[in-house]
């Protein structure tokens, strides 16, 4: 199938510039590590703050990473070819965001369990934390992709993107951090996880349309 060839291309490219793609992940690790330095490194305090700290750091890291989603394609002209392809741009974009998430979001989710240990987050709840990030970070990727599509033609788009997208990410942050927080104190975390799942379904179905519309507008001039 053709679309698998596109995934293959994206993953191959991602592998060749893995250094660049690692930056959001490194950013995530460093930001998480800064909190104990700014706060009091007392274990009970850290434990109570851990879900929020990890979630905010993941949110920022994912959004910062999304700036590069279409940038190189825009600069080298591949984006025009994508738009001129007779294949459905929605599908192309969906795969694009997904492979980008595989390259940046997934490593971040994996590392979050490690960061959880540094923040004295209870071991028994790590599964829920990882699950919440697994469901939530793709939603962030899609929201970030909408912002990236709208700002791809702008020279100073990198600063603008978080301003546009951060307010939209509030529900993901709330449910994600709540799931991780509840699990840590032994409360049931299913409800917020379901909400995250529902948002993921919404993002998967609606965001590609917003992203393609944004790309078409950005490339018009």
């Amino acid at each position, binding site marked *: 199938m053709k679309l698998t060839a596109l995934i293959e291309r994206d993953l191959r490219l991602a592998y060749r510039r893995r250094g660049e793609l690692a930056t959001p992940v490194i950013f995530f690790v460093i930001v998480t590590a800064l909190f104990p330095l700014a706060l009091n490194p007392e274990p009970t305090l850290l434990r109570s703050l851990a879900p929020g700290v990890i979630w905010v750091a993941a949110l920022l890291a994912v959004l910062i990473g999304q700036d590069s989603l279409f940038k190189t394609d825009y600069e080298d002209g591949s984006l025009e070819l994508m738009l001129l392809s007779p294949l459905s741009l929605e599908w192309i974009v969906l795969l694009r965001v997904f492979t980008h998430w595989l390259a940046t979001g997934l490593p971040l989710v994996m590392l979050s369990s490690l960061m959880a240990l540094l923040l004295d987050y209870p071991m028994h709840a790590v599964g829920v934390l990882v699950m919440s990030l697994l469901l939530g970070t793709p939603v962030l990727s899609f929201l970030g992709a909408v912002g990236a599509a709208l700002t791809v033609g702008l020279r100073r788009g990198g600063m603008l993107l978080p301003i546009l997208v951060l307010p939209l990410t509030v529900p993901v942050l*709330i449910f994600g951090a709540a799931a991780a927080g509840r699990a840590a104190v032994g409360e049931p975390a299913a409800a917020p996880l379901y909400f995250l799942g529902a948002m993921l379904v919404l993002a998967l179905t609606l965001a590609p349309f917003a992203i393609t519309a944004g790309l078409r507008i950005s490339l018009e001039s």
Partner: protein
Amino acid sequence: MFVWFHKLASPPFFYKFADKLAPWLGWLSLLVILAGLYGGLWLAPPDYQQGDGFRIIYVHVPSAWMSMFAYMVMAIAAAIGLIWRLKLAHAVSAAAAPLGASFTFLALVTGSLWGKPMWGTYWVWDARLTSELILLFLYLGYIALNHAFEDRRTGDRASAILALVGIFNIPIIHYSVTWWNTLHQGPTVFFGPRAEMPASMYIPLFIMIIGFMLYFTAFILKRLQVEVLQRERNTTWVRELVEKS
């Protein structure tokens, strides 16, 4: 009727139409707001719990109401602009944003001034105030994107997409914030009209809301004139208009 709407969407006709209508609506809104203030600040009795502090309601609730109404106007106009490629519709979105942002700002400031005597602090992460704050961020994002492009038309269309994504998100944001708020059981003070309010309390509130709506209509027309002029500056009708004046 439809023909009339079609004519109204043509920029030169609209410009003259707005020129005639805006001052009338502006003065009318002033009258209505003054009447509402008289009712709210003088005639209405003090609240049995909040005393005279509750009188902030007459500016807080209309502002909060308008902040959401303006976003609706902005998003609907954005959709019309994208679907039917109506330049005037994009101008409506661009004109509604700064007005909506100011109402949101007002709702936040009056809300926190109300909160101080009730909670003992200017800011509490109450569900409504938090939603208002996020709404303000959404407005700021829209305005920033709208002005980020060299070509005004590209900016209009890009920010229209953002407004639409926003309107889909607002219910989810509001729901999540309410959920989060009940989870953490913050202090709740009731902002807004209550079922058992006497007529002398809620009638001024409705008058104020009507006054704010009139104000919004009057000054969105005025702002639209500016937006239309900016977008149409090279056309012959603008040249003729300039030469006549």
